[in-house]
């Protein structure tokens, strides 16, 4: 009964999406205000219906309804309740439903928070979002229906993939999808602007908070995914340049470029066409990512089970959405005005360099990800492109980008003088160079790469802190967007220091340990003290007790496990991690080894600066939140300022 209700809700949602997509847009063409005003209510209605469908699917999971195919494939009566709920998005169909839910919620948010926008604009934006919803909802209803019945119902479900039975799954996909889908709002604003022919600073101001919020979610989602891979997969890696990871990185890079480009468009009215193109690009990359992950075109650890018919549908959808957007762009962009003048050295050009470098980096990642496919399609053979390529190509592009982050924030708009910049930044530069060159010696062997990485990290970090101090000295209220920008930049600096640190100084020991054996990675000692069998809710495990000592003093007890879930034959490693501010100690239990005395294969890692990776990401997320909360995006601000001005006038 409930699955049918959910299915019906989805069908209704599709019909409402048709109304939302078609009528308001037609209304703007025929200047019919009544049809334009259909936008908000239909968006809200669609959100309610999709939420209902989602609730029905969740209820099927929580009640162990194995007469639903999707539930039987991804759940199990022994699965703990929180994971039963998270299993809703553990497979292709359910994750698509999550996507559509996010899309509907974002559309509803636009409907609610757009009171200050002209009706025609709201109609266009929600209309475009409606059209996108039509695509996804029809995709779900035709090829990926999560409510399909299994008759007779299964006695027991197949269980959620053990890799996914983890808190990370509960939160990583929703955050990521909030980001992907959030970029559709900026996309819709861009299309609306192209359709109306009005591409002005106001458009940029409206788009910016939505973009920043989407970017923040995307940053958080990618960071979570990285963190999850780090502790879940057992060998302490956190980025593999896997196609699906790249599919999330590419929209992030373009969204970052977009935020910076929007700044220029808002302030100086320049780069309008470029900003619109970036907005289209960011969402297109989101859609491309969806295609890559679900079509079976590329092999990846993360890929969903693929089905050629699904691939064809998504590709057609991608072609229609992006193709028509780019056609509209080619038609309307030439008429766009150029905006204010700018000198060869100015904040605008720094921001333009930011765009160039980020877009080239995106191009490089896209090239590497797609190249095997291109070569295969041309019948020229099969090759692989992996981490060695990406690391070699991506890092050099980041060097100039990190460098210009500081002069870019110091430089004046329109015209900046090189001599001024040098004078302002010389102390920061010298200090950064000093820190970067000397610090590596404190941790181990010195190398150019380490010094370069830490110099850049110090440059951005110190440069940011210096600017904050300078600003605090001046009077006046500091807007939230100031904090947002500098927090995000500081986060980037921390991330760079972390990446450089862990890559330069991590130590791994692959050993065989019997009871009483120990491994030393100065100043830490790891001693295997006990090994026992334990039972979990849906698994059985072997658990090791490893005592960690620091300079001989007991520090911590780590308990890595090797689990055997009842549902699959695949054994799972649960690594044990001790996190500090400056380092992680990571122990991973392997197989029982043969020999006279009982020994186990163990991997022990000393990973310095890893917590800085997560710290950097969190700082960026806080920065995004701060930037989005800036008062100028809130309607009440205008009223406040008027009240302040009149009070001042009366007093003065």
């Amino acid at each position, binding site marked *: 009964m409930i699955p049918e209700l959910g299915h019906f809700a989805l069908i209704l949602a599709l019909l409402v999406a048709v109304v939302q997509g078609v009528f308001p847009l037609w209304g703007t063409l025929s200047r019919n205000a009544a049809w334009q005003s259909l936008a908000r209510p239909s968006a809200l209605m669609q959100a309610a219906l999709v939420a209902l469908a989602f609730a029905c699917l969740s209820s099927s999971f929580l009640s162990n309804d194995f007469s639903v195919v999707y539930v039987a494939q991804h759940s199990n009566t022994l699965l703990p309740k929180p994971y039963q709920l998270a299993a809703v998005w553990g497979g292709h169909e359910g994750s698509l439903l999550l996507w559509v839910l996010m899309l509907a919620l974002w559309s509803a948010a636009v409907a609610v928070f757009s009171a200050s926008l002209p009706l025609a604009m709201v109609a266009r934006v929600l209309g475009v979002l409606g059209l996108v919803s039509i695509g996804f909802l029809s995709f779900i209803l035709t090829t990926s229906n999560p409510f399909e019945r299994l008759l007779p119902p299964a006695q027991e479900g197949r269980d959620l993939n053990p890799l996914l039975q983890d808190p990370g799954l509960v939160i990583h996909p929703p955050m990521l999808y909030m980001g992907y889908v959030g970029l559709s709002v900026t996309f819709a604003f861009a299309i609306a602007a192209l359709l109306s022919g009005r591409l002005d600073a106001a458009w940029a101001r409206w788009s910016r908070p939505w973009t920043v919020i989407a970017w923040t979610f995307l940053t958080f989602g990618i960071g979570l995914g990285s963190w999850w891979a780090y502790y879940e997969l057992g060998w302490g890696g956190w980025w593999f340049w896997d196609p699906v990871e790249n599919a999330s990185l590419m929209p992030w890079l373009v969204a970052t470029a977009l935020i910076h480009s929007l700044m220029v468009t808002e302030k100086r009215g320049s780069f309008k066409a470029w900003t619109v193109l970036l907005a289209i690009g960011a969402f297109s990359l989101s859609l491309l990512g969806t295609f890559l992950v679900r079509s079976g075109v*590329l092999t990846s650890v993360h890929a969903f089970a693929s089905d050629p018919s699904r691939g064809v549908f998504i*590709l057609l959808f991608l072609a229609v959405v992006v193709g028509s957007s780019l056609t509209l762009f*080619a038609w309307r962009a030439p008429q766009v005005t150029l905006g204010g003048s700018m000198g060869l050295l100015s904040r605008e050009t720094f921001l333009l360099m930011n765009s160039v470098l980020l877009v080239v980096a995106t191009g490089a990642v896209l090239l590497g990800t797609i190249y095997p496919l291109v070569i295969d399609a041309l019948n020229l053979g*099969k090759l692989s492109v992996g981490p060695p390529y990406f690391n070699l190509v991506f890092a050099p592009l980041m060097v100039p980008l990190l460098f210009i982050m500081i002069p870019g924030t110091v430089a004046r708009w329109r015209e900046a003088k090189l001599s001024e910049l040098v004078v302002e930044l010389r102390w920061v530069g010298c200090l950064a160079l000093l820190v970067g060159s000397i610090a590596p010696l404190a941790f181990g062997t010195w190398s150019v790469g380490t010094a370069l990485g830490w110099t850049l990290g110090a440059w951005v970090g110190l440069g940011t802190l210096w600017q904050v101090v300078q600003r605090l000295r001046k009077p006046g209220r500091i807007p939230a967007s100031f904090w947002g920008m500098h927090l995000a930049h500081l986060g980037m600096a921390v991330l760079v220091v972390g990446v450089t640190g862990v890559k330069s100084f991590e130590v791994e020991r692959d050993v065989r340990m019997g009871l009483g054996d120990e491994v030393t990675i100065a100043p830490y000692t790891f001693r295997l003290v006990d090994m026992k069998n334990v039972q979990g809710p849906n698994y059985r495990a072997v658990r090791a007790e490893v005592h960690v000592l620091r300079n001989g003093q007991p520090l911590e007890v780590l308990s890595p496990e090797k689990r055997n879930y009842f549902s699959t034959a695949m054994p799972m490693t649960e690594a044990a991690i001790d996190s500090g501010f400056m380092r992680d100690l990571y122990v991973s239990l392997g197989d029982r080894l043969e020999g006279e005395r009982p020994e186990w294969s163990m991997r022990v890692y000393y990973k310095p600066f890893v917590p800085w990776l997560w710290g950097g990401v969190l700082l960026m997320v806080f920065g995004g939140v701060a930037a989005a909360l800036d008062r100028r995006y809130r309607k009440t601000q205008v009223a406040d300022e008027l009240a302040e001005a009149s009070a001042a006038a009366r007093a003065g």
Partner: protein
Amino acid sequence: MNWLKLQRRRERVDVSDMKKFLIPLALFLGLVAFLAVGLKRDPREIPSPLINKPAPAFSLPTLEGGEPFSPQSLQGKVWMLNVWATWCVACREEHPVLVAFARQNAVPIVGLSYKEIQPQDEANGKLAPEAKLQMARDRSKVWLARHGNPYALSVMDLDGRVGIDYGVYGVPETYVIDRQGVIRYKRVGVVTPALLSEKILPLIRELERS
């Protein structure tokens, strides 16, 4: 007057400029074309670099016992090499096809028993090489007796070394080798009747003519 001139200059658009706005669309359509073709490909299928190269030499004990076998001894004949194992589920699917094909006596089929002894067989301690070989022989003989034996003879590749030389990465795999001992065709996966009639048999006939 000044303002008007400025306005008009800003809005002037060159025709050549307009074309550059079509570049993103052109690039995108190119991408879609590649993706469309890619949908029809299997990204996990690895073409063999050994096609048109001499079949790697080896000398392995046979299932039946006696002299070890080397591909050299089949020089001058067109023959098939089929990689199989008793633990391989897919092999059971293709086996009847091979048995039926063997009855046609078109070409000799040599079986390569690949890693018959698996880690779980040695869970209680490593087996001595002779014991390992004997266990593999016994198991394979029983299996072939039950499912039919299409092989002129079967060689035992216990540690998978020869498999690596032949670029084996999954079982079953099948090779067609010509009179000069050059590999002419490789099939990764199950041999189906359709594949036999459409690809393999015509190839064999062509090779026999030369």
